[in-house]
């Protein structure tokens, strides 16, 4: 394929030149001037060195009448309503999505359970689970974090705070319609793109209502520097609408080409949408809760651009050994391995910051969730890079191992991070402590132990399944029969996780309906950053 290879080389040469020119321009214009002091953008003067733990035991806080952050109360008050709407609906989808996930898991070892209704057949229940947790739980909870933290790092209140409320309502409406469509058998037939494209258009419109307030708030910011979390989130909110609309153009793609579009989208949804939401959250909450800035701020630049460059091209590793051109598969494998670079950059930054302040883990359950999430991001990414190697992929592709990997990323990384973020945000938003503080560690241990069982079972089971399928002397049935105990263990783990989610949802509801305090805390709608950067 001389033309293709030549074209490819020419392309990457031109792109490198453009990138280089851009870099020179950016440095010349001080667009990328960078120093460690800018990591302190998240603080207000005098705040550094003081841990900020919203989940601290109530007796320690009894002296205070409220849990508001007094300095930022004016900013938080504006974003409170959209954030609460987003969180309440996200947690609704978490619970419903988990119940569907658990049902799908049970059906794999009780195949004759609930087989009378087409809406409850495995293929539909599994699809409902994925779409509810991906587009309902993680996306909405991630957007809630963005809408709450972004104004804080920009040191000014959220602009157009009604738009995200409308956006959340429309988004949820689209998801309800999508759930009924998929339960009744109407779907677009591709993984991660099951939601009928007609409904997708509503989702895309709803999504744009989050972009406008974020950009307007960024423009109105009361600090020169944009903190690293802001890069991730602004980029994610640029990427996702493009991805979503391009991948959902109806009647345009077909056959093997459509498969490349499918996996270009499906992996970018993880890499360029869900991952930036979670990594950005880690970059804010870890230093904020500890009260000390991130370890190496310039390293975060490498992490961000590395993610953009490499992650955007890894998708075709889902088609290794498949009916698509060799070069595009190889390209994705190379970029999958290159993902080590940005992941190590993020890992050094986040883990060293936590590692130097281990005392804080004992104090704050929220930090425990978030830093464990950050560790799982590192692990999931390393695992993903290794899984993309041809020799490893031959064994693990088409097996339950991949399902375990997907949950290490979407659950242990992203969901743990979001749990911690919500535990930290809610007292600040409502001015109240969590009503049953002992239930927070219970939630933590239920989901951690549940997930550990889930992951170990599917990883071992998946490898054995893959090896059995590669052994021509063993019948295919071997790969099914050997999997049974591992599928049962997965249901046990998934059951514990679901139980944790039910506790979490109950706790969240109790906090929402608890008696309102005398009045909401008012304050200035701008804060002063700790650095004059």
């Amino acid at each position, binding site marked *: 394929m001389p033309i293709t290879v030549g074209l490819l080389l020419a392309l990457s040469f031109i792109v490198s030149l453009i990138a280089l020119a851009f870099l020179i321009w950016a440095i010349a214009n001080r667009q990328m001037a960078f120093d460690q002091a800018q990591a302190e953008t998240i603080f207000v003067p005098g705040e550094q060195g003081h841990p900020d733990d919203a989940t601290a035991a109530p007796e320690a806080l009894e002296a205070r009448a409220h849990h508001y952050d007094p300095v930022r109360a004016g900013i938080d008050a504006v974003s409170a309503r959209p954030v609460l709407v987003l969180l309440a609906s996200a947690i609704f989808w978490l619970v419903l999505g988990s119940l569907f996930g658990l049902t799908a898991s049970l059906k794999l070892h009780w*195949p004759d359970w609930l*087989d009378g209704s087409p809406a409850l057949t495995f293929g539909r229940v599994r699809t409902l689970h994925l779409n509810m947790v991906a587009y309902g739980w993680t996306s909405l909870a991630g957007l809630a974090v963005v809408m709450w933290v972004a104004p804080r790092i920009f040191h000014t209140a959220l602009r157009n705070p009604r738009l995200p409320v409308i956006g959340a309502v429309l988004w949820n409406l689209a998801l309800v319609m999508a759930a009924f469509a998929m339960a009744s*058998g109407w779907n677009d037939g591709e993984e991660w793109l099951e939601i009928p494209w007609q409904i997708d258009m509503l989702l895309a419109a709803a999504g744009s209502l989050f972009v406008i307030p974020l950009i307007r708030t960024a423009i109105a910011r009361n600090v020169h520097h944009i903190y690293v979390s802001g890069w991730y989130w602004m980029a994610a909110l640029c990427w996702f609408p493009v991805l979503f609309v391009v991948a959902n153009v109806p009647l345009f793609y077909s056959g093997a080409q459509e498969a490349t*579009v499918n996996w270009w989208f499906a992996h970018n949804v993880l890499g360029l949408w869900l991952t930036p939401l979670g990594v950005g959250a880690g970059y804010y909450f870890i230093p904020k809760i500890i009260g000390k800035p991130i370890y190496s701020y310039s390293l975060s630049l490498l992490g961000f651009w590395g993610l953009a460059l490499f992650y955007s091209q890894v998708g075709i590793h889902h088609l290794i050994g*498949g009916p698509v051109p060799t070069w595009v*598969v190889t390209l994705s494998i190379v970029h999958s391995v290159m993902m080590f670079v940005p992941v190590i950059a993020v890992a050094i930054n986040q883990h060293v910051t936590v590692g130097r302040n281990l005392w804080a883990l004992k104090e704050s359950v929220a930090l425990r969730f978030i830093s464990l999430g950050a560790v799982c991001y590192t692990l999931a990414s390393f695992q993903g890079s290794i899984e993309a190697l041809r020799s490893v992929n031959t064994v693990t592709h088409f097996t339950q191992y991949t399902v375990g990997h997907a949950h290490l990323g979407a659950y242990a990384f992203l969901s743990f991070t979001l749990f911690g973020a919500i535990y930290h945000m809610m007292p600040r938003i409502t001015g109240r402590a969590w009503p049953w503080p002992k239930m927070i560690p219970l939630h933590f241990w239920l989901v951690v132990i549940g997930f550990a069982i889930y992951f170990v079972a599917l990883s071992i089971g998946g490898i054995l399944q893959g090896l059995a399928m590669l052994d021509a002397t063993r019948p295919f049935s071997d790969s099914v029969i050997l999997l049974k105990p591992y599928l049962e263990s997965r249901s046990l783990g998934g059951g514990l996780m679901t139980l944790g989610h039910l506790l979490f949802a109950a706790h969240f509801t109790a906090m929402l309906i608890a008696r309102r305090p005398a009045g909401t805390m008012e304050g200035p709608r701008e804060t002063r950053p700790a650095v004059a950067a």
Partner: protein
Amino acid sequence: MNRIAPLSILALGILAFATLLLVIVPGIQINTEPPTPGLKPYTAQQLRGRQVYIANGCVYCHSQQPRSADQAPDDIRGWGRAAVASDYVFDRPHLLGTMRTGPDLLNIGARLPSREWQLTHLYQPRAISDWSIMPAYPFLFEVKDKAAPGDVVVSVPKEYAPRHGVVVAKPAALDLVAYLQSLDRTMPVPAKAIRDDGYDNDGVGK
């Protein structure tokens, strides 16, 4: 980074580049190939059956992309030769799949062509393989006291049969089986047909 516009432009530029390499260029390359010789478009009934396959999420357990003999024993298992891009020109949407909880189905029409076998298996997979974890699809069938003329009666072992009456396939079941029977990519393909050749043992320098 202190500016919003350069950040957004660069971020979108990188995505555009990835789209060019992962979507546009492979798309152009794949679309230059004619359909595999002998490959026929789906009939109306097969397309209806394909929709039943999609509606019930068969793709989540069954791939449709046999791997090459140099990578895996797919061909020895009867799943067929390595699939190439031109095998899928009539597939909208594609159903390549990413899981093999069950076997690959790209050549199921050649491997198990019997309509009776497929109908019984869809009604109750464990009537055929006691180890199977595939869901049963009783809602694609109905139980009647007596078969009417033109009804397709499904043979079900006593253990799984209803107490009274006979099991009759609904049109959706017949469509689905027609689609499964159409899955046959056993026709030969040119050696240079597009696919991932990264595992080829003989392909040093190819």
